[in-house]
């Protein structure tokens, strides 16, 4: 009994302390954000306007260089393509997960989640081993005589898309699956009872009700894809670069910090812009929390 009272007394003391300074409990979080995020970010933005000269010179240079514009286009186009394919594959995958027995559903869940535990670099290398000219697929096709010379499976947009999809699939599948299992089965029966064929029930009821998951997954995948570096570096062609490769190029190879930082800022604006546009069409907060189960 006494320990309970002591405990309660202790909690009260803490409670009073917290009430008297509302910012105190937020302090660790605020510190982490400032030092891990805002500080480097601020530096990057600062460099982009000051190095080597003060002003908009770096930005002018970016938008006047065709190769940079191409890089911007590649980043957006390949991310878009990969997201689209990922959504289609993810939807089918999540659908089979949501509509099969518990055991099968768990197996499918494991298959999509487990690879997340393997290092991204390792997974990219193994994809390289599968896709390259002397890789698994080409050797196999050659050995059964389907092809004479290897198919161009690597160093192109296709390979980068495959890479992004294989890394991002879980982030597409999980929100879609989460939305699908929340669909009330009675709604589907109601549709059927009103005369809708199974195909119509899917198109009119199931699909629209699962779309929030598709939007959430696509947003996550697209925004992550924009910042991809390892995958395009190892699987893409040298002539089509992602912005993050570009950043690395300017900072590491050319040692032009200010200009590299500028490309980084542009990548950031692209990401924020995407989120902004998405938020015009949906309530991101609500969609993400409903579809990912986070509260």
């Amino acid at each position, binding site marked *: 009994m006494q320990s309970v009272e002591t405990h309660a007394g202790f909690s009260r003391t803490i409670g009073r302390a917290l009430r008297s300074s509302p910012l105190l409990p937020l302090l660790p979080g605020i510190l982490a954000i400032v030092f891990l995020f805002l500080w480097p970010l601020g530096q990057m933005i600062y460099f982009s306007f000051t190095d080597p000269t003060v002003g908009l010179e770096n930005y002018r240079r970016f938008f006047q260089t065709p190769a940079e514009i191409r890089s911007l286009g590649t980043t957006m186009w390949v991310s878009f393509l990969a997201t689209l394919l990922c959504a289609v594959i993810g939807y089918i995958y999540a659908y089979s997960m949501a509509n099969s027995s518990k055991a099968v559903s768990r197996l499918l869940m494991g298959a999509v989640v487990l690879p997340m535990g393997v290092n991204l670099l390792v997974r990219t290398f193994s994809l390289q081993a599968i896709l390259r000219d002397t890789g698994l697929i080409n050797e196999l096709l050659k050995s059964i005589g389907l092809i004479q010379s290897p198919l161009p499976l690597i160093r192109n947009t296709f390979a980068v898309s495959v890479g992004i999809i294989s890394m991002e699939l879980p982030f597409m599948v999980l929100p879609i699956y989460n939305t699908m299992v929340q669909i009330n089965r009675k709604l589907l029966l109601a549709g059927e009872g009103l*005369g*809708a064929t199974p195909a119509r029930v899917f198109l009119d009821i199931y699909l629209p009700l699962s779309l929030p998951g598709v939007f959430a997954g696509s947003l996550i995948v697209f925004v992550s894809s924009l910042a991809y570096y390892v995958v395009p570096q190892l699987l893409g062609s040298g002539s089509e670069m992602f912005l993050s490769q570009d950043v690395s190029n300017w900072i590491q190879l050319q040692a032009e910090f200010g200009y590299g930082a500028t490309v980084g800022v542009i990548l950031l604006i692209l990401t924020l812009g995407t989120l902004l546009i998405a938020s015009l069409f949906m309530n991101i907060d609500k969609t993400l929390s409903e579809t990912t189960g986070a509260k």
Partner: protein
Amino acid sequence: MSLLSIHDLCFRYGEKSVLKNFSLEVEEGEFVSLLGPSGCGKTTALMLIAGFEYPESGSIVVGGENLNDVPAYRRNMGMVFQNYALFPHMSILDNVAYGLRQRKISKPAAYKAAEEVLSLVQLQGMAHRFPGQISGGQQQRVALARAIVIKPRLLLLDESLSALDRKLRVEMEVELRKIQREVGITTIFVTHDQEEALTMSDRVALMRDGSIEQYDQPSVIYEQPKNLFVAGFLGKANFLKGDIEAAQDGHYSMRLEDGNRVQFGVPRPLEVGSSYTIGVRPEKMEISATPTENATMPGTVSLVTYAGGVTQYEIQALGKEWMVQSQNATVHGAIFDAGQQVWFGWKPDNSLIL
């Protein structure tokens, strides 16, 4: 021939047998209630009729057509689900028009018909709202409108009023019956509420454990229950269980299981030496300060519940607790007090032989 005729339907969920030789006949235009305790298989029976589940054996015939192999979307049944199952992403109007659109009716015609049915259920102004923006009672009416607009062969209602508060429920009961008569639609109404079943139905089918115990008009199923379960489920009753020891002038003496003896009259002869269960409803009993022709047993009042129109007594007698209800038929009628000695009993005609 009946509109709906279900014969010896059997159905199981995995190992669990849910419907066992379930049979039911419903006439054109009839309002039938499926009444029974929770879990007895009422919803399952509706699911089979609607075609959302298929029977293991038995048949469902509607208007002479065997539906066993007809998928739900071709059965033309109007189902109102327990929690309404309105499409949350469609407006009220689109919800109601949905069934018509599936029947290849043009959009304007479907909307026009939907508007008409919406005004029948008094929801004219709600057409462009969404299910999340209207109250439970209104959702219930939308679900009803959505089901009747397709002119279904049968209207199937699953505990449709249970989620509503009492006042709204009574209103909806009346309204539902009115609409049902207006449209002339044959209806199966699932409920676990006996009062609802008795007041609304042409016939009540009382279910227990996957099959029907008794299927009759409300007054028959209440006044002439076939067995102990029916008598106990519908309304209240005092039960006497034991062997008949002696008979005299149509009156019998029964030895109860605890050894006490009780005398009573019955409407038809009993066999001396056999064991019976007799039921008497509280409102069929008489209570009096002095012995009368029908109040022949002495007892002590242990609890009095005055309820305006009636007074309910609990009486201790013969080692049992008896429920007796008396009508407060006059302004200055006698009300007995707890602890008071009284006489009570019942007319032979009021004994239910179960």
